[in-house]
């Protein structure tokens, strides 16, 4: 880190034993900003709980096949014998919940809800992470360029941000996701849908990041340490990558973390509207859309709904904590 008040770095040998804690025999440790932030974050129990849930959910998504193997049934397998043939409603209490089917089964075709929720985490997190990454890359590049270059470059990029913010994003996204054929650019099936959703979600969200990065760049550009670098003869790339970017890491990290839950909700909404990843691949939004038709079996809606809620909440809790830890003034 090259923050102006950075206190990190190795001590001079002569430091030891010279300070007030001389008698204790412990060297005074310099702490970098990230260490200070981490120490603050560790004290924030709510944020740590959020982080724990996030880590847990990532593990669930990564090891989905293993988990389903151990506790569930294949997510695409129909179990019609678990469903009453006349009413199409699952047999047994609470939508067929048992030790065999932990979250019960779907009405009509009797698929294992537990497995489908577990597999749904994969699509949800994958799309949310990649879309966030895309937004962050576009947003950071354009934000830094706009803030650093100024002038007409800044004007054009800022106007583009305004246009994007005025777009009815959701309608646009469903329309775009709807007109693209099932095979394009040599991709097909889930791969195509996932790439398409990542592109749509990521591409429409970059202005939020860009606006913040631009503002930060504008104020950092005028700081003394940038002047110092410039007067020492540093070139633009050096100033951008070595002086500005390290100082932009905190806002980038914060807003990326807070963009992930928005993107999870976005993906769920698109799947709910039927333009997400195509069935039978399980998605949380898609399961909720199916559940609308079976309101007499509320457990069908509750599990995917809670999955979305828990995931979004965990990311929000962690993101809020991260913001407080990295930028105490923003409390």
């Amino acid at each position, binding site marked *: 880190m090259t923050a102006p008040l950075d206190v990190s770095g190795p001590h001079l040998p002569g430091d030891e034993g010279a300070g007030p804690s001389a008698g204790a025999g412990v060297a005074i440790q310099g702490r970098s900003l990230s260490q200070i932030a981490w120490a603050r974050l560790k004290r924030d129990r709510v944020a740590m709980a959020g982080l724990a849930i996030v880590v847990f959910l990532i593990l669930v998504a990564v090891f989905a096949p293993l988990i389903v193997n151990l506790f569930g049934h294949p997510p695409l397998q129909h179990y019609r014998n678990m469903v009453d043939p006349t009413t199409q409603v699952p047999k047994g209490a609470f939508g067929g919940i048992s030790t065999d089917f932990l979250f019960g089964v779907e009405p009509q075709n009797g698929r294992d809800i537990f497995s489908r929720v577990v597999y749904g985490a994969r699509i949800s997190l994958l799309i949310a992470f990649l879309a966030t990454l895309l937004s962050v890359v576009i947003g950071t590049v354009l934000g830094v360029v706009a803030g650093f270059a100024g002038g007409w470059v800044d004007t054009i990029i800022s106007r583009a941000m305004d246009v994007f913010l005025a777009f*009815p994003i959701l309608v646009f996204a469903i*329309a*775009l996701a*709807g*007109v*693209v054929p099932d095979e394009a650019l040599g991709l097909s099936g889930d791969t195509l849908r996932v790439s398409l959703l990542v592109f749509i979600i990521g591409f429409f969200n970059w202005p939020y990041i860009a606006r913040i990065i631009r503002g930060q760049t504008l104020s950092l550009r005028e700081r003394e340490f940038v002047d110092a670098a410039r007067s020492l003869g540093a070139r633009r790339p050096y100033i951008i990558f070595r002086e500005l970017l390290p100082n932009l890491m905190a806002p980038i990290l914060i807003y990326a973390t807070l963009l992930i839950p928005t993107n999870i909700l976005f993906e769920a909404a698109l799947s*709910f509207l039927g333009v997400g990843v195509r069935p039978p691949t399980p998605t949380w939004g898609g399961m909720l859309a199916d559940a609308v038709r079976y309101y007499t079996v509320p457990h069908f*809606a509750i599990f995917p*709904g809670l999955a979305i809620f828990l995931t979004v909440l965990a990311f*929000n809790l962690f993101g809020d904590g991260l913001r407080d830890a990295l930028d105490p003034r923003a409390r």
Partner: protein
Amino acid sequence: MVTYIIRRLIAAILMLLIVSMVTFAIFFLVPRLAGATPEGMASRYVGRTASEETAKLAAERLGFNDPVIVQYGNYVKGIVFGAEYDYGPGVETCPAPCLGYSFITRQPVWPDLLDRMPVTFSLAVGAAVIWVLVGVGIGVVSALKRGSLFDRAAMTVALAGVSLPIFFTGLISLVALSYGNPFSIFAQGGHYTPITENPIMWAYNLILPWVTLAFLFAAGYARLTRAGMLDTMNEDYIRTARAKGLAERVVVTKHGLRGALTPIITIFGLDFGLLIGGAVLTESTYSLQGLGKYAVDAITNNDLPKVMGVTLLTAVFVIVANLIVDLLYAVVDPRVRLS
């Protein structure tokens, strides 16, 4: 002030042009790039079973053979002057704000949109009233009683609120309070009575969607208002206001809230504009036949002119709402007027 208004107006019109171009490109350029032929596009009007000859003729008559830029020009011309559609069996006229012609029903899109508007408008206005009052109110009280039990409880609920997708809360509310046996006190989804017909039934049918939609937004607004209030209440001019002996109530409402409200107004403009262009998720969940449901149904049927119409209309609402917000800004904040 006049230059400010004119500049905003020009910006709004430019924005509208850009949005319409991008929308048109998505619906008529992307399919072409993805490999659809003019005949393929035209066959949507004449039906898939039509012979190749008919499709070819229709493509010619409907202008699908023209370069996309010409098609766009004709589309804009249709909006301003109206257009005529000749899909084979007969010529259909589509009067002035002609937003195209449905593939499926062979009806102009604009009257459909006019038909759906009151539903979406009722939904959006009712919800907006609730969420602004509740959200801003809770945010202010939370900020003033920072750290209290009320603050912590309200912020916990608000955080949960922004983390819940509306199609989940809506579904649960329907199951628990409408379809469910013990508490079936609210209207089931899909009912709408015009306010001119029976205001009480109008409100009764919409109360559940209002509350669900408002809950989501109120949560976000409470968080924003609280943060904004905490910021402004630390400003020097608040201390000045207190020092000159103003009552605390006046300090909070006239000085604190006014400063905290400007970013809220901006976001409200965007949110409300988007919402009257179609509360897509809420309408889908409650089966309300508004603009959002219209868009979703049109997408399901691949009826591109309808989707394009709704998208464009939504953009108009957003841009107009933004324009109003910009003008309001000039009224609320004198600095805007001068810059």
